[in-house]
């Protein structure tokens, strides 16, 4: 089995009684290792809910989800936390860096939580910051960096531990188109170089074009699933 993520008939309902919102309706899909997949769709289509389900931040109402071969629906809160720490990297729309830590310390954080020795940590962090183009900015705090630079730190933090899966929720939504293009280049390069699996949500057509695979959601269901060229046809 080459799938890093597998969803089987996943439903997610919010609310109770008469006011129930069906965020996901029987979603089934597989994402293979090394893929760079975009999840697109209008607001409220279920993109973020899908990412939250895969990361274990939210539990499905019914159905099963496997990440890296493990059934997350049977995992406890702490097991899910461990899974995220060891196997999943996160890139958020609003960067979500720790404001009191420098760029270096933000990137180092996950390695520290994983108990990686200091010397190894230093090598890895310096290498990844260089790779994302932040060499020389290690000591800067997030407030001293531009939006694009902050998102580069967030990407560095997400991939520094070489996770099996990187989830990115609208990673370019808060940056200009030029910076967005540069960030996408970076993610594409990292996907090629390190074989990291990227799954990001977006509603930007330019971003969708950079993905090798596109999943389009509407009202919690998969509307389309394939390459953009294929979908354009």
């Amino acid at each position: 089995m080459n799938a890093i993520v597998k969803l089987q008939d996943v439903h997610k309902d919010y609310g109770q009684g008469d006011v129930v919102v069906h965020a996901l309706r029987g979603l089934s899909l597989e994402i293979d290792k090394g893929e760079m997949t975009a999840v697109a769709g209008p607001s409220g289509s279920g993109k973020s809910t899908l990412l939250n389900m895969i990361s274990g931040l939210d539990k499905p109402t019914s159905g099963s989800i496997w990440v890296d071969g493990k059934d997350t629906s049977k995992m406890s809160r702490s097991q899910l936390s461990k899974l995220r720490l060891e196997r999943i990297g996160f890139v958020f729309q609003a960067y979500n860096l720790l404001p009191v830590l420098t760029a270096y310390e933000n990137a180092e954080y996950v390695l520290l939580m994983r108990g990686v020795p200091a010397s190894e940590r230093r090598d890895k962090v310096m290498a990844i910051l260089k790779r994302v183009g932040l060499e020389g900015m290690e000591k800067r705090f997030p407030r001293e960096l531009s939006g694009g630079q902050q998102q580069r730190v967030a990407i560095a933090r997400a991939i520094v531990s070489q996770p099996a899966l990187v989830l990115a929720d609208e990673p370019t939504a808060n940056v200009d188109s030029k910076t967005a293009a540069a960030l996408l280049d970076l993610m594409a390069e990292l996907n090629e170089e390190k074989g990291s699996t990227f799954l990001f949500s977006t509603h930007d057509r330019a971003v969708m074009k950079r993905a090798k695979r596109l999943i389009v959601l509407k009202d919690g269901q998969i509307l389309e699933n394939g390459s953009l060229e294929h979908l354009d046809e």
Partner: protein
Amino acid sequence: MSLLMKLAWRSLWRHKRRTIITIFSIAFSLGLAVFFISFAEGVYAELIDDAVRMQAGHLTIENKDYRQASSIDLLVENLSELRSEIKQIKGVKSTKAIIMGQGVAKSGRGAVGVAISGVEPKVEQSTSPLAKKIVAGRYLRAGDSNAVIIGKNLAQRLKLENTRELKKLHALLAPLFSPLLQDEELMDDLLRIRLSIGKKLVVTTNDVNGQMVEELVRVKGIFVTGAVQIDGYLIQVPIDFARHLVGMKDDQATQLGILLDPDTDRQEVISSISAVIANEPDARSIVVKKWEEVMPDLAAYIKIDGGSNYIFQGILIFLVMFTIFNTILMSVLERRREFGMLMAIGTPYQKIERQVILETIFIAAWGVLLGLVFGGLGGYAMQVNGLDLRQFYPEGFTVSGIAFDMIVHAKVEIPTLAVIGSTVFGATILLCLYPMGRIKRIPVADVIR
């Protein structure tokens, strides 16, 4: 510095003003509590010290029935042997024999009911504050016979001064001193006191056989303690004269007072004294009592006043705790997104908890440290210099017949500082439990968007 420490420390100083206000709130309330508790401890310690020195000691050996009916025939026998054995006990500083009785003091112009206290002048001079309260004449001396010291109020009530003599002195001194002594009453007061010295009194009381006896005594000194009950009611005579008056033998007294060294384990001394008493011929009739049993009014006052002081300080600290609680809760609630993100990237919940605890510890440690320094230094200054209360209480202040020394001193003690400091520190740490619990309930998926 570990990452958690770094995170906690830097997170605190991200909101400098809030952190500083919180630290100073803790420091202020703790400082006040330390100061007032040290102040109260000092006042109580002085009050107890004065009382036990003036009266029957930290511990008192007396007849077991004496407190029910303070009769002159309820004696402690075999005094010298008992004293020599008790003096051997570790922690015993000195002993004092006392004869307490009731009677009437009569002058040519009045008669007043009095408490007669037969004391050992040499011992009292070195222990009793009364010896230092003499305002005219002198205190009793060893070898004095038919001598008495009385309070200023009693002297006034007995009208001991010679009226003709007083008028003569008034006439003589008024032109000379009236510009200086503008208060005529004060001059009159001073003259009356001075003129009471050397005057004669007749003391009437019952002897150990219940017979009425009386003796002529001469006033050697006038004391002013500020306590109306003492200044207007107590007379002191040499113990040998008191024995002669009431018909006691040399080896008898109504009380044997025991003064202890500071920081002595009182219970241990009581056990040792009880063992000594058990070997006495009158073992069944005598007991050793704590000063609280001998002066229950004073003990009750200290208990009530001390209790209310602790309650007041407790309320103050409790109110400040709300500020601290609010600060910690706000700090957690406004960082929901930060904590949510940390949980999203896999930070174990316990690590986030530890970060919040560390932040609280930093705040509490600084607050407590500053509070102890402020309160401790304030208390220490008051311990060294004292506070003169005479301008607030010109008439003096008495508790259960014991006059407050109007220059009061605080008493700063390390164990007190440690208890108050660790209580506030512990309470502050406990306060972060609820905000910490709120972290668990953060809807991570919602807050990280």
